[in-house]
């Protein structure tokens, strides 16, 4: 977690030398001049919040953990359903009916016990977003509804955090990175669609592997942000069509008329996003094993 000075509180000492086990584990990263030992320590010192431990959040969190990102926060309130297992790689058949957060944490720590997984076992809402998001360096969006997407966008802008955004449906994927002051989700889509007009993955379906493509790209953008390398997907929107396997890129501009990040903002605090999107409030399911959520 990041403290008020912007430095890290991860388990290993900040900027401390890598342990022999870390040098061996991360050797394929460390050997690259763009990462090196210093970059690996930056990854260890970083804290990243992943919104949702589902289709996108799974591969994002997995690659962050494998790479040794020191603190990985996850917001997730759902339980594992059999229908999740076609794509959600952190959960297995034996995890059905378990809280996804529990199953995600177990998977991540099994891959890499060096990382800290911070659990936020609730939906992210206007009431708690500003208690959670400011504690992290970077936020990754794996939400599955418009209300949460506008909420996370607004909270990241207000907290001054970079948001690595991805979305999927059917055979399509989208990827972009919002840096405060350089355009936001409201610049891209000023209004949400009326409820029911754009189907969800549950209603229309989604190719399991597209979650891995987009989630891996989101993780890549996080690494670039932490390591300060390459050209981030800022002011660019990547469109992925898995059927034709065509990748196209569109310009994404800050809209001077944006109510959040424009020249005369009217959204200066979090609002009621269910009302904004015309969507019903999120229902939190009860895990089969009472008290299993930790």
């Amino acid at each position, binding site marked *: 977690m990041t403290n008020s000075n912007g430095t890290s509180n991860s388990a290993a000492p900040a900027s401390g030398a890598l342990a022999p086990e870390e040098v061996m584990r991360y050797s394929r990263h460390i050997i690259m001049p763009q990462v090196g030992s210093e970059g690996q320590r930056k990854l260890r010192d970083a804290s990243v919040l992943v919104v949702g431990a589902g289709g996108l959040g799974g591969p994002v969190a997995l690659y962050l953990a494998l790479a040794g990102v020191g603190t990985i926060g996850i917001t997730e309130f759902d339980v594992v359903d059999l229908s999740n297992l076609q794509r959600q790689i952190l959960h297995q058949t034996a995890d059905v009916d378990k809280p996804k957060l529990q199953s995600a944490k177990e998977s991540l720590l099994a891959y890499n016990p060096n990382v800290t997984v911070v659990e936020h076992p609730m939906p992210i809402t206007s009431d708690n977003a500003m208690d959670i998001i400011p504690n992290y360096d970077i936020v990754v969006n794996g939400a599955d509804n418009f209300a949460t997407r506008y909420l996370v966008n607004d909270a990241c802008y207000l907290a001054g955090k970079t948001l690595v955004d991805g979305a999927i449906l059917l055979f399509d994927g989208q990827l972009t990175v919002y840096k405060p002051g350089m355009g936001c989700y409201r610049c891209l889509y000023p209004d949400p669609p009326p409820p029911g007009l*754009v189907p969800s993955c549950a209603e229309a379906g989604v190719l399991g592997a597209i979650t891995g493509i987009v989630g891996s790209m989101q993780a890549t953008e996080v690494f670039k942000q932490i390591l300060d390398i390459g050209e981030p997907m800022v002011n660019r929107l990547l469109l992925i069509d898995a059927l034709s396997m065509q990748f196209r890129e569109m*310009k994404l501009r800050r809209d001077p008329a944006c109510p959040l990040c424009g020249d005369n903002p009217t959204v200066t605090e979090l609002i009621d996003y269910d009302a904004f999107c015309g969507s019903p409030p999120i229902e939190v399911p009860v895990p089969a094993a009472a008290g299993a959520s930790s």
Partner: protein
Amino acid sequence: MAVKVQVTSVIQKAVDGQREFDAEGGTVAELIDNIDTRYPGFRGQVADDSGELHRFVNIYLNDEDIRFLGGKDTQVSDGDTISFLPALAGGA
């Protein structure tokens, strides 16, 4: 004036399952009229009853959002590509 039109999965069903096809028109509005003539109901995917473009569907002339050009009056030329991109919210 032949313009290449590209749509994503959400709109694909409104244009006979195509991802890409040609359409005619000198502006984005004319292009939408042309597509709607061939595929009745298409207009409703991208605009409301008064003809105003939905704010949750982006339209790009090549790689530029037409809201930063001339909106529905944006001129299009032979060889241009127009893309219709509704918002996606899937993540789970």
